[in-house]
């Protein structure tokens, strides 16, 4: 096994051991799914059509925005980065490994929801599973991009969770997974469109990879990558 692969597998195991990922990627989304899935489908039976999409958006937003930044802060705001540098390991590696690990955890959780939602709440299975999972992958990648900015930018580790929650709450509340986004006041609807969760939800709910829903996600993703590169450079030269 080469160094990169070993490091990636190890990071995945470390994330499981730390329990932060376990709680944010699996436990909380499953509890939310069990409670809200039951409530949504009994009050509004038509939500079974979009239950997989809405629960996936919540799980991905939760795992990425709340789960990833502490892992990044552990590396870049502590003396772990010194160990990387002393061994000639590029600082980018920490960012890549934590993102790959989180990506795999979130993809697993999305697959779990895809399987159990129809069984538990008679949720409608997307007609085009390929388009659904492409949407999931794009949403995970873009959400992790935003999380990486929080993990790299917030200087104080203790503040990481606060900033994560500040992004997570509007991201899920205004995305349309709780109630239709077009019922929101215009200002809130506009703010909701700044977050990937809104576009990811539309992508999965419509079960198609329509270009006009994709480009905002790509813009957010590339802007995140650019910002992460700048932040890493700043950390490197500090």
């Amino acid at each position, binding site marked *: 096994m080469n*160094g990169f692969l*070993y490091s990636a597998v*190890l990071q995945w195991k470390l994330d499981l051991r730390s329990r932060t990922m376990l709680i944010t990627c699996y436990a909380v989304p499953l509890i939310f799914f069990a409670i809200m899935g039951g409530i949504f489908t009994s009050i509004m039976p038509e939500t079974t059509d979009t239950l997989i999409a809405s629960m996936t958006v919540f799980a991905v937003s939760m795992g990425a925005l709340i789960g990833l930044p502490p892992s990044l802060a*552990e*590396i870049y705001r502590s003396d772990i980065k*010194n*160990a990387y540098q*002393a061994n000639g390991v590029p600082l980018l590696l920490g960012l890549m490994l934590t993102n790959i690990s989180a990506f795999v955890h979130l993809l697993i959780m999305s697959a779990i929801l895809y399987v159990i939602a129809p069984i538990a709440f008679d949720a409608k299975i997307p007609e085009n599973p390929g388009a659904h999972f492409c949407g999931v992958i794009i949403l995970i990648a873009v959400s992790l991009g935003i999380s990486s900015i929080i993990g790299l930018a917030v200087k104080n580790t203790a503040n990481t969770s606060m900033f994560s929650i500040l992004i997570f709450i509007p991201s899920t509340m205004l995305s349309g997974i709780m109630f239709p986004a077009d019922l929101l006041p215009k200002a809130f609807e506009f703010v909701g469109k700044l977050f990937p969760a809104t576009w990811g939800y539309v992508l999965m709910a419509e079960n198609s990879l329509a270009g006009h829903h994709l480009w905002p996600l790509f813009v957010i993703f590339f802007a995140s990558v650019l910002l992460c590169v700048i932040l890493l450079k700043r950390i490197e030269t500090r």
Partner: protein
Amino acid sequence: MTDALQVKGLRKSYGKKEVLKGIDLCVRKGDVFALLGVNGAGKTTTLECIEGLRKYDSGNISVNGSVGIQLQSASLPAYIKGMEAVRLFAKWNKVSADTSMLAALGIEHLANKKYREMSTGQKRRLHLALALISNPDILFLDEPTAGLDVEGRIALHEYIRTLKNTGKTILLASHDMAEVENLCDSIAILKDGLIAFTGTVAELTEKVGTHYNVHIKTNREAKDFEVDNIGPGLIVILQDYQKRNIVIQDIQVDRGSLEQHFVKIAREDNR
């Protein structure tokens, strides 16, 4: 003997403050070399520049051989186990994971222990083991025994001597003068961003003058004296006691420690 490390005219500023003002250093292959200095003298900056962890403004650093680094301020992920860390560092350094140094450092029992559960001393020994994974020619140790108990300290000193016997060059920064005196072939004292002294401990003693500590116990008191010239100095002290009819019960004399010499150099130009 070939030089393992050469530093010429090393300069580094943080903003307007010039921390290193032209450092010249030379460490011979196979030597244990200590970098000393009071806080803020520029020790850590010098080490970090040499280790490649910090960019410097000007000067030339030439390192002749592979390098292993044990940083004072390094850490590992909280949930990584000792053996996983060894494998990870081995992969990074593209070598096979040789666990013999774990046994040599008395930390083979840490193989399955998580980093967060290790004591400070265990962590330091693990970091030393990780620095040795690539079997480097030159080893940088920053405060290697900080946080170790007496037993751990003795074991580590013994291991450093073993490493020296295998031909490794060791550059260490330490505040423990007894450790430096005990382990090092040569030293450099940094002062205000410049090298105030470089040479062996014996050469330092020669530079600052012969220095003795005299401890005298009488029927009334116990008192310590410091004299630069033992013969005439001791006679003066004894004559004084004799004049005052004080009975001397015990006299102990020892050579000045490295610490005293170090303080003398550090204070030299501040007078």
